[in-house]
């Protein structure tokens, strides 16, 4: 267990030529894996093991949890975008027969800052009893001036959403806390990132491109709503919750209620979507526990669709002004961005680190501001910051390439230092038919076709506070355990592949136990980090559990333990496979009913660039390039995305099928973001008018383009599995690729999302092309 050894790992892009890298690794680590082609299960398109249960309805989601004596909770919410709570009398509600607990969340005199803000929570013996209790609450709201439009909120005389005391702290980009940023009216910031001298860089440029871009507020629209069942008992608290982070919610609960971690259990089975909005306990989770404690019974709290759309988080909207300078050969001399974004009453509406890191540019500055409006709080959503950031920058780069009369790919070859993305551009260009790309408006007739490209940038995140257990039982059955949750990506299947690979079994032979904090701590399923965090310690744990079995088998086979290999359901002597024990027979030799090993996540072998208490960022260049082919009807304004080619990398690909599924999901979410989705606020009343899935439009099967996914095998020798994530990169490049394709089709740039027929017709009208 102590000391280190030196190992040589395969490294590089397998498809284009593999080299090696030598690493000093802890002696306890398993040996390097070869490329996937030489492995049995890793990288294979293994269908998700819980797929059948999902499509047959057998999977238990949090909304399906029913406990004996369970109560039903719901919220009285503020009907107004800005109000003072004048009176609150719950006595009549409390006197109703079916009511078991009432919890005020605001007091008379308190200010309420968005329509839908929780005011009182009630728990009753049935949904109807809870609804009747809400109706019996006597609450009076005094309307106050409000503002829901970001541009109006920036005006000096706009109604103030927050004061200094109520304004939340945090960085506009959402990650590090940034206390002390100035607050003026509703505008907080700027948070400034600067290197070099952008003004000088612009002055020295041969070509300057300036542009303004807008992105809309985009809601997570999880098909499974936010839901929790809290069960407070003297012996401990159990919380069933639709969450992206069981272990994190357990920690939040322990802190909030002063409980030892040992008395808090958090459970999730099926998850119907999170996309960043189910990362924390949330007000609703805490309230359910409080109600359960007060009522002495389990309490279920599940949002309806209106609550999902107004108080379950959203991707903030942005306004971005870019100035880009370049020399005639395309070298960037300056990149300056000023952004204003709104996360409603919350912070975190910045543009991420996309522009800061994607391209080489010595003179760089972002000035990012949060603008408060009277609307529900935003939160992280699939590629937070970088997704709206990419929409602006990748169009500006496209504009620059046109001004320089350079091919957009050639310009990127010059300014993008990533060798991986260079290869991704090459592959994608070939697949989309880039050589057949023609100038804007070249088609006859009203329907114009175009091709566009955009790039993705995300972090290779790793959670270090992660452990896994592998158990081998005496009947030959195998379990892998972690509190990690499957938010729909299929992490359980990947875990089964890893264990099967090590033990020489099939994935279906491995029982996966996850989504329960009774098991070793899994990390969060956000930030595209689950696979990267959990598979290395899982492989190591499986290797150590196997070693215990190998010892017994070696004795029986008269061989040394290091002569034994696990393969094809057997433990066999490597040099003479005719000497073997079936895995099950070897397990029968165990002295105890089960053996197990628990391992935790080590640092990446090459180290981490930045650390947080429980997490690290291995690299900041997780890639991905997407190409879109569109058809634009210039007489109706309708955009049809016909094809998307998505070329991505995520270290060692663990499961081809699940990766394609995630990329397709990311692309589809990107198409929906590009063309359809937007929160529509009525400016005169301050309410969201499309808080549903009827007029809040999600892309469906008819809107789905043909999606071709290519996943590179990009080995780096960084961990026992060398795997990284893909969820967020898959979403970041889609909208700007479509926007660039639209420009290539019609010669008019759509600078605001979503690109609806209305917006396309208006842009064509402004340009005089319609």
């Amino acid at each position, binding site marked *: 267990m102590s000391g280190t050894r030196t190992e040589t790992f395969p490294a590089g892009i397998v498809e284009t030529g593999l080299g090696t890298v030598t690493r000093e690794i802890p002696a306890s680590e398993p040996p390097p894996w070869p490329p996937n082609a030489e492995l049995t299960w890793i990288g294979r398109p293994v269908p998700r093991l819980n797929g059948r249960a999902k499509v047959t309805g057998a999977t238990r989601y949090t909304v399906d949890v029913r406990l004996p004596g369970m109560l039903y909770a719901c919220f009285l919410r503020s009907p107004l975008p800005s109000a003072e709570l004048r009176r609150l009398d719950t006595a009549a509600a409390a006197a109703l027969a079916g009511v078991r607990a009432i919890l005020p969340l605001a007091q008379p005199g308190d200010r309420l800052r968005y329509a839908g803000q929780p005011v009182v929570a009630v728990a009753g013996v049935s949904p109807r009893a809870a609804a009747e209790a809400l109706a019996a609450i006597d609450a009076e709201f005094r309307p106050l001036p409000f503002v829901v439009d970001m541009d109006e909120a920036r005006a000096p005389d706009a109604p103030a959403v927050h004061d200094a005391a109520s304004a939340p702290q945090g960085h506009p980009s959402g990650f590090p806390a940034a206390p002390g940023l100035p607050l003026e009216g509703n505008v907080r910031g700027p948070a400034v990132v600067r290197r070099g001298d952008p003004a000088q860089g612009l002055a020295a440029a041969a070509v300057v491109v300036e542009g303004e871009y807008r992105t809309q507020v985009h809601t997570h629209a999880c098909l499974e709503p936010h839901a929790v069942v809290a069960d407070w008992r003297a012996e401990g608290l159990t919380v069933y919750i639709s969450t992206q982070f069981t272990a994190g919610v357990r920690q939040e609960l322990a802190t909030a209620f002063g409980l030892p971690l040992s008395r808090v259990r958090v459970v999730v089975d099926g998850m119907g979507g999170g996309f960043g909005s189910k990362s924390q306990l949330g007000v609703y989770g805490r309230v359910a526990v409080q109600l359960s404690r007060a009522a002495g019974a389990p309490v279920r709290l599940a949002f309806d669709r209106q609550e999902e759309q107004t108080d379950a988080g959203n991707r903030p909207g942005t306004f971005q002004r870019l100035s880009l300078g370049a020399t005639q050969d395309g070298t960037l001399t300056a990149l300056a961005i000023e952004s204003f974004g709104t996360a409603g009453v919350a912070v975190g509406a910045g543009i991420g680190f996309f522009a800061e890191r994607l391209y080489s540019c010595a003179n760089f500055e972002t000035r990012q501001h949060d603008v408060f409006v009277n609307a529900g709080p935003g939160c992280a959503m699939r590629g937070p910051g970088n997704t709206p950031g990419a929409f602006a920058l990748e169009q500006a780069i496209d504009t620059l390439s046109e001004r320089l009369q350079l091919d957009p790919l050639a310009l990127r070859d010059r300014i993008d230092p990533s060798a991986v993305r260079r290869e991704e551009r090459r592959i994608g260009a070939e697949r989309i038919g880039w050589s057949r790309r023609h100038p804007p408006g070249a088609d006859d007739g009203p329907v114009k076709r175009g091709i566009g490209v955009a790039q993705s940038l995300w972090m290779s995140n790793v959670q270090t506070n992660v452990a896994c257990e592998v158990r081998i039982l005496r009947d030959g059955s195998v379990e892998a355990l972690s509190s990690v949750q499957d938010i729909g990506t299929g992490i359980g299947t990947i875990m089964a592949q890893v264990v099967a690979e090590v033990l020489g079994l099939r994935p279906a032979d491995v029982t996966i136990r996850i989504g329960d904090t009774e098991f070793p701590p899994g990390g969060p399923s956000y930030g595209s980090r689950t696979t990267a965090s959990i598979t290395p310690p899982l492989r190591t744990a499986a290797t150590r559990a196997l070693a215990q079995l190998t010892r017994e088998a070696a004795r029986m086979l008269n061989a040394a333990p290091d002569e034994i290999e696990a393969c094809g359901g057997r433990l066999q002597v490597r040099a003479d496979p005719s000497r073997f024990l079936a895995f099950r027979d070897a397990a029968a030799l165990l002295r105890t009913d089960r053996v197990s090993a628990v391992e935790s996540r080590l640092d990446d072998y090459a180290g981490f660039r930045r650390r947080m208490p429980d997490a690290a960022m291995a690299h900041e260049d997780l890639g991905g390039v997407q190409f879109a082919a569109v058809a634009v009807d210039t007489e109706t304004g309708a955009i049809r995305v016909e094809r998307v080619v998505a070329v991505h990398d995520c270290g060692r690909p663990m499961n081809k099928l699940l990766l394609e599924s995630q990329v397709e999901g990311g692309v589809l979410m990107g198409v929906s973001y590009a063309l359809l989705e937007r929160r529509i606020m009525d400016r005169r009343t301050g309410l969201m*008018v499309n808080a549903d899935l009827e007029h809040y439009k999600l892309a469906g099967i*008819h809107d789905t383009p043909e999606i071709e996914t290519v996943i590179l095998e990009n080995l780096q020798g960084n961990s026992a599995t060398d795997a990284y994530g893909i969820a967020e990169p898959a979403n970041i490049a889609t909208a700007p690729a479509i926007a660039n394709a639209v420009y290539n089709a019609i010669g008019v740039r759509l600078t605001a999302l979503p690109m609806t027929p209305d917006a396309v017709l208006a842009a064509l009208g402004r340009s005089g092309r319609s």
Partner: protein
Amino acid sequence: MNRFAYATPATLAEAAANTELVSEAMVTLAEGAVLKAGGIDLLDLLKSELLAPSLVVSLRALPGLDAITQDPAGNLVIGAMATLAAVADHPLVRAAYPALAEAIAGSASPELRNVATLGGNLLQRPHCWYFRSPAYHCLRKGGGHCFAIRGESQYHAIFDNQACAIVHPSTPATVLVALGAEVELHDAEGAARRLALEDFFIGPADDLQRENALRPREVLTAIHLPGRAPGSRMAHRRQGEKAGFDWPLADVAVVLTLDPDGTCGKASVVLGAAAPVPRRARSAEQVLQGRRIDAAVAADAARAALHGATPLSRNDYKLALFETLVRRAILAAAG
């Protein structure tokens, strides 16, 4: 949703005889009984508490109400309980009224079309977000104000929108009006009447709180389509934001009769999602009548169709959109 009783009568008289019976779409009698056809819109209305009936009367068990038949004169009779899927797939519909089949096939989703009925589709209430939201006591619900006119009007009317800016939500209705369909209505005493569908729908000027002429205790039982005239041609064009399962932003049906020499005899041009009722574009029809239809005539007619439009602050894009769809539908029908 309130508590209600549920009945499944076996005869029309029994269904119609319930006191205060209102159709699926009539919400003004909030305490009364309500008819359920497919129940699609009804469920939405119950959930949003725009309807709080004491009794829901299902028409499911009534025999023959879903039949699609041809009468001896060649007219097609579509029972009000025929599902949208059954209408769109019916050989007689596909052969004689392809634009109707196409319009229906482009409406809603396969799941909804399998359950939703043609009668219920014609009687559904407006989908204006102000009307549907309990937060807005709008003019159509007895309030004093239309919130759309100066509010978020992107999906609203560009004609006849001075008082209330709803659009009629039915896409099949656009085609049915163009085809000259009639509705058959029965009351509890067994009396029947027929009404041109065009006259069945009523705008805000006639009644701000109802969208059709259905009376209390009256049931819509059938839709009658006149047999296809010789030389008649038809087309339907729609554009939504989504490519499927979405409301149209604009929706156009054109039915023409062309003489053997190519001259347009009768012309019917109807705009859906443009006004509180399916709107006959009579000025466009006049442009077409007596002319040989070519691209220039179609463009003239399309411009005429938008004559007098009064777009709101968020929906002037509909002018260009309708103009395109009218022109394309005319050319598709004529071609």
